[in-house]
């Protein structure tokens, strides 16, 4: 085996405390939301917010996600200025959508529920899109869709692979059919990506439902899920309510989806960068337009500027 398949990960954790996750100053303890055990915060961080006792993968913010996944300092964010325009002037029960957006923005520190840009994963250039669950449950509205499509189109322009990291409650009801149509819009963009022989690697994290699962997130060359992530079309409560069916244990977990053939693999968070980098190495043959032998070629793919 060539050595470089075993290159050590070089994660960047320096920006982790800028995230809006549970802030855990050095030396304190945090409580795992799954096993309820107390975990030493430094361990929690060292293990990428995965509980060392029960392996629970806690949710990450978009910022945390990109910090863990991308090489230090490699991320260049795009289209941060794109925000929703409230096309329906939506208001429910006195709650105006535009106010909810403002609150979500303040709470999450993000102007929208998707962060897009370009970065490097273990040396491999890629376009990345990561959802921000703290922003209205990472629901897919117009701004989400527009940012997503621009990122895909930019990947085509730059001939770079496309990596999406998703969790989401689904559609953004406040934008109604505008939101629904983002499913078509994001998927159509990926169709173009594929025509250019550029791969889409989709990473599904907890929880991933509705319009996102039923569009771009499952239209991928490789689908990877984090352990225990809940993934589906309809949520378990909706299913139970409507059908009165008793749902089996483990229903809609990543492991359930693997068994039912819907995803390529379940991958622990700590193994993600290395796994993605390995895939990008393999796809470099296609990305770089070369189908002939030669690792030398493939390794220049890391620059991604063909």
């Amino acid at each position, binding site marked *: 085996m060539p050595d470089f398949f075993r290159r050590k990960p070089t994660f960047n954790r320096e920006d982790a405390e800028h995230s809006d996750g549970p802030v855990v100053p050095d030396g304190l303890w945090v409580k795992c939301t799954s096993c309820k055990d107390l975990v030493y915060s430094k361990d929690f961080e060292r293990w990428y917010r995965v509980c060392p006792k029960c392996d629970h993968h806690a949710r990450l913010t978009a910022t945390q996600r990109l910090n863990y996944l991308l090489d230090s300092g490699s991320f260049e964010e795009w289209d941060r*200025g794109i925000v929703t325009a*409230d096309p329906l002037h939506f208001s429910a029960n006195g709650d105006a959508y535009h106010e909810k957006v403002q609150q979500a923005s303040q709470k999450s520190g993000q102007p929208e529920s998707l962060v897009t840009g370009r970065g490097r994963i273990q040396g491999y250039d890629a376009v990345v899109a990561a959802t921000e669950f703290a922003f209205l449950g990472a629901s897919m509205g117009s701004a989400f869709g527009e940012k997503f499509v621009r990122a895909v189109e930019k990947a085509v322009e730059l001939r770079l692979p496309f990596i999406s990291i998703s969790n989401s409650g689904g559609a953004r009801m406040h934008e109604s059919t505008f939101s629904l149509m983002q499913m*078509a819009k994001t998927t159509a963009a990926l169709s173009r990506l594929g025509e250019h022989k550029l791969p889409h690697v989709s990473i599904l994290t907890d929880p991933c439902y509705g319009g996102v699962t*039923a569009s771009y997130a499952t239209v991928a060359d490789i689908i990877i899920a984090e352990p225990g992530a809940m993934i589906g*079309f309809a949520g378990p409560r909706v299913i139970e309510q409507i059908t009165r069916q008793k749902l089996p244990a483990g229903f809609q977990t990543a492991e359930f989806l693997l068994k039912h053939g819907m995803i390529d693999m379940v991958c622990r968070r700590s193994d993600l960068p290395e796994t993605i980098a390995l895939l990008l190495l393999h796809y470099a043959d296609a990305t770089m337009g070369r189908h002939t032998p030669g690792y030398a070629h493939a390794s220049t793919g890391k620059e991604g500027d063909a």
Partner: protein
Amino acid sequence: MTSTAPAWERVQLARKPERPHSLAYINMLISGFVELHGDRRFSDDPSIVSGIGSFNGRTVMVIGHQKGTNTKENLDRNFGMPGPDGYRKALRTFHHAEKFGFPLICFIDTPGADPGLSSEERGQATAIAENLLALSSLKIPTVGVVIGEGGSGGALAISVTDRLLMLENAVYAVASPEACAAILWKDASAAPEAAEALKLTAQNLYEFEIIDEIIPEPEPAHEASDEAILRTGKTIERHLTEIESIVSDQGIEHLLELRYQKYRNIGAWVDQQEAVISGDSPDLARQNGQTAN
């Protein structure tokens, strides 16, 4: 029925069991229709009908959600809510039509995709997503008509077409008013308000440029079924002829570019950094006609 009828009234009309469903349209508009069955994988889903026939002299393939007109039929048809097998039957039809260069006509009429346990097990989300992908690059003319309820992703999975038409009393939204009310009003009985807020009428969606034409119902389709269907047939014909002209004049790749731009341009957003109204063209700016906060 005036164009200012409240949204909730439209929802009630769109759901009327007596309203013509897909097979009524097919039987009247498609000559020599042969229904084709099955997904070649798991089952034949009766909530989706699909087949081949002749529409005004040209061979077409047709797909439609199929609701029942009574309880028994509705149980047989799962209330027009397809499972993954239904979407895969549709997918097979897409590719069949593409192979032979037949135009595709889709009739949309569903409360939504089936939310059951076994649908999840067999990949409901994946099935819908694969249809969206396939439709976006299908190298044939495609026309969709929302004839009743356009419910969420379950409707979208057969509606991403070159031209999307809508009957006057049809509705199309991201969620049912009841579901929306339950979530955002915390009260399902607020459905009428939710229906209004969701802007789900044909008139709304035409103004948003999400649909291409409203097919008028001088009388509601459940009271004047033949007229509604024939009117729909004429409207489909006009759009199909236009699309066929585009293909013969400018090639199928141009049609695919137009289809891409059609969905690419749906959305209402602003770019705060540029501090201008967003959009790539004056047309688009109108569509995304919102000012920055």
